[in-house]
């Protein structure tokens, strides 16, 4: 039995109440409201990496109004239920599945990856996106590749470069040591996709060639997840339905 607790306020008097419910055993291997930590999830569709993949909640901001529950079965089957109230503030969390990568960028022929996600669509109330967070040179250089974005216009920035990968236009934004690729020619013309695939290697080769990533960079780690900024205090779901990563050296 699980207790449901609530309270009623009647004319200034608070009356606590409870009820009981019998919930089915969780269909998720890991359910947590923790803000940090991680759990290993061996996963056959992440290959060519240097560690067992893991999943973690990774909440670092948002204040007491940020509430997140992570439900995880595998890097291809997990989601977070989030309520945040930050008045369209900065990124409060990056729940993700991650792994160590560990070879020189130039050692790979291709890194083909695919995703299927669902995120809330109402950009008047939600700022959050799905994407890859890739680290290089012992955590010195960060590259994000965003694939599905819900955000109001105040999150727009000016691109420093554009390029075409896999027949699709992308634009690059730079925030200090963080480089962020977004789909489309600029932030006013995003091409968000809930499902898709791409080859990461051409992004990195192009960045090395154009000075946005040091030449002969070495991979440190990769991850895929959701950066969540705000949901206007409404509980929303950011879900991974499928995921694959095949690094071919």
């Amino acid at each position, binding site marked *: 039995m*699980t*207790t*449901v*607790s*609530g*309270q*009623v*306020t*009647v*004319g*200034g*008097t608070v*009356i606590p*109440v*409870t*009820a*009981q*419910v*019998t*919930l*089915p055993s*969780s*269909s*998720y291997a890991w*359910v947590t409201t923790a803000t940090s930590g991680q759990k290993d999830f061996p996963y056959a569709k992440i290959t060519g990496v240097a560690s067992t993949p893991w999943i973690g909640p990774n909440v670092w901001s948002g204040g007491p109004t940020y509430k997140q*529950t992570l*439900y995880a079965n595998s890097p291809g089957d997990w989601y977070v*239920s989030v*309520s945040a109230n930050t008045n369209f503030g900065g990124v409060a969390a990056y729940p993700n599945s991650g792994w160590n990568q560990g070879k020189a960028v130039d050692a790979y022929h291709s890194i083909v990856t695919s995703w299927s996600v669902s995120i809330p669509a109402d950009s008047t109330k939600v700022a959050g996106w799905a994407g890859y967070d890739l680290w290089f040179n012992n955590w010195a250089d960060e590259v994000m590749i965003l694939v599905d974005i819900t955000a109001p216009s105040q999150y727009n920035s000016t691109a420093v470069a554009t390029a075409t990968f896999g027949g699709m236009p992308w634009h690059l934004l730079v925030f200090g040591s963080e480089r962020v690729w977004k789909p489309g020619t600029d932030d006013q013309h995003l091409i968000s996709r809930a499902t898709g695939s791409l080859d990461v290697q051409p992004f990195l080769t192009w960045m090395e060639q154009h000075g946005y990533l040091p030449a002969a960079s070495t991979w440190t780690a990769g991850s895929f997840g959701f950066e969540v900024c705000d949901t206007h205090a*409404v*509980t929303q779901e950011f879900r991974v339905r499928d995921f694959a990563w095949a690094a071919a050296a």
Partner: protein
Amino acid sequence: MPVTATLTVIPAAPAHGATVTATYAVQGNSPGPGSSATISGIATVGGQDIQVSTTVTLPGAPALPESYQVPACQGLTFTATADPHVFTAVVP
């Protein structure tokens, strides 16, 4: 009569994907009973005072305002509905 409250959750044993409904109910927060009052007056007719009166029933005190907290439960995330007494959650 003391004011009390209850919380009811249905279904009591939901399956995965089911919607659970939590409903608050408050007992004893009724408007107070009406009270009778006498209104008196004097009419003067040709210098002679005539005492008159009538009775009215005044309304009782209104019910106290009520508010309901979003129910909390490990493993369920309740959200509000159009009815402020009622909250729902989907079982993951």
